[in-house]
């Protein structure tokens, strides 16, 4: 090899290396922060040029989620939701636009799911104590059931008020508020100039934009019958500009006399729904994935899949026997783990 050729080759290598490193995604990095809010864990992941940009956007968004959580906290006496519930059957309560909006969306989800999702399930929720493994007496459930009916929520948008028709009624937004907060968070991050990221509140997740390597975000779906660290996931799904929520019978539950009692309660019976182990819903907004993952779980695999298709959503349902049902479009995005 002559010196000239050697120099030429060296120069080409140097140019190539320079090109590779200058084109590599060194500019944008992924930043993730986690904060306990809304009685759960909130994680925000953003793609940003600097940690300062990321930190500022995330902190502003955490504050927004916190403020919203305070408005609709079912267990706090100081929330707007508690005020509505306290005045059930007495008078209407003036609320902030966000409280009005999320209750409106909850009623809409109840209508679309034929009452499988019902935000007035509060009196039933209060009876169950999953922490201390206490199941309510049948008579208590029978007494509380007539108080569950979303049609008895009167919303006056002009006056920004909410009224529950009958004394004892209670709205519980546990099946929709986290999804709503995820959407709020995504809008907040976008407003702060973040072009791609992921917000997760207790497993209600929404993605926007792509990762720095221009690939979609990868979300793991929990295995409802996990036995150890190795079989934590049942599947992985690639998402961009989509939300996903999963409702499962393994989140809050206890087993009594070989029967599993979990927190996904059927508004028509007051008892845990038994048709599914887990339901994952994919669509544009987290407010919908949150409410409909609960609704479809209550409906069961057959009826649930029908509603999912009518609504133009995607779903993966694991029924009570462990069989996996999927819509066609989700099959292209999902990879099942080896154990399934």
């Amino acid at each position, binding site marked *: *090899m002559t*010196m000239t050729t*050697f*120099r030429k080759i*060296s*120069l080409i*290598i*140097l140019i190539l*290396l*320079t090109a590779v*490193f200058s084109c*590599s995604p060194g500019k944008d990095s992924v930043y*993730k*922060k*986690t*904060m*306990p809010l809304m*009685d*759960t*864990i909130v*994680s925000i*992941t953003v793609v940003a040029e600097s940690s300062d940009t990321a930190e500022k956007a995330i902190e502003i968004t*955490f504050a927004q989620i916190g403020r919203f959580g305070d408005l609709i906290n079912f267990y706090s006496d100081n929330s707007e939701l508690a005020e509505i519930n306290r005045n059930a059957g007495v008078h209407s309560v003036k609320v902030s636009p966000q409280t009005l909006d999320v209750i409106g969306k909850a009623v809409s989800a109840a209508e679309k799911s034929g009452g499988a999702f019902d935000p007035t399930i509060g009196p039933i929720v209060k009876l169950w104590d999953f*922490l201390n493994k206490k199941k309510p007496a049948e008579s208590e459930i029978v007494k509380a059931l007539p108080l569950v009916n979303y049609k008895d929520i009167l919303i006056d948008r002009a006056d920004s008020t909410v009224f529950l028709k009958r004394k004892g009624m209670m709205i519980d937004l546990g099946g929709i508020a986290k999804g709503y907060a995820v959407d709020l968070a995504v809008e907040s991050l976008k407003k702060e100039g973040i072009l791609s990221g*992921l917000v*997760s509140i207790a*497993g*209600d*997740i929404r993605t926007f934009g792509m*990762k720095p390597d221009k690939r979609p*975000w*990868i*979300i*793991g*779906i*929990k295995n*409802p019958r996990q036995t150890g*660290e190795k079989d*934590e*996931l049942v599947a*992985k799904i690639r998402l961009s500009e989509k939300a*996903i*929520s*999963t409702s*499962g019978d393994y*989140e809050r539950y206890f087993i009594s006399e070989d029967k599993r009692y979990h927190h996904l309660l059927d508004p028509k019976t007051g008892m845990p729904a038994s048709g599914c182990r*887990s339901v*994952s819903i994919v669509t544009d907004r987290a407010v919908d994935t949150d409410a409909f993952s609960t609704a479809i779980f209550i409906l069961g695999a057959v009826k649930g899949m029908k509603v999912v298709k009518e609504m133009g959503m995607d779903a993966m349902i694991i029924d009570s026997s462990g069989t996996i049902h999927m819509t066609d479009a989700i099959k292209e995005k999902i990879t099942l783990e080896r154990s399934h």
Partner: protein
Amino acid sequence: MKEAIRNTTTADRILFLLLIIASVAGLVYTREAFSLGSDVVVEVNGRPVYTLSLDTNREIVIDGSHGRTVLEIKNSKVRMKEADCNNQQCAKQGWISRGTIVCLPNRIVVIVGSGITKDIDAITG
């Protein structure tokens, strides 16, 4: 080869030096990009209070909003050994080598590695 080395100029040497720097930078870059993330970060109320190595066995007492919790690191795994809270969810989670342990009543988040399990960005369910 000897003749080629003898014929090198200062510009050639600078070029070789740049090539070596580029190669070393490549190695460092690759290590950063595929970092195994061996650190354990403990946050209380969203603020980091400890950054610990996963390689050193130890027990750490963390004062949370509700009471005292004890974090144990052993054989490159982490668990919440004790927690002064009523649900004990964090303690029940057991040992992890990646991911997060959360004690909600104490507002404590323990992030092991990057906080992300395997090759995924988040978990639903």
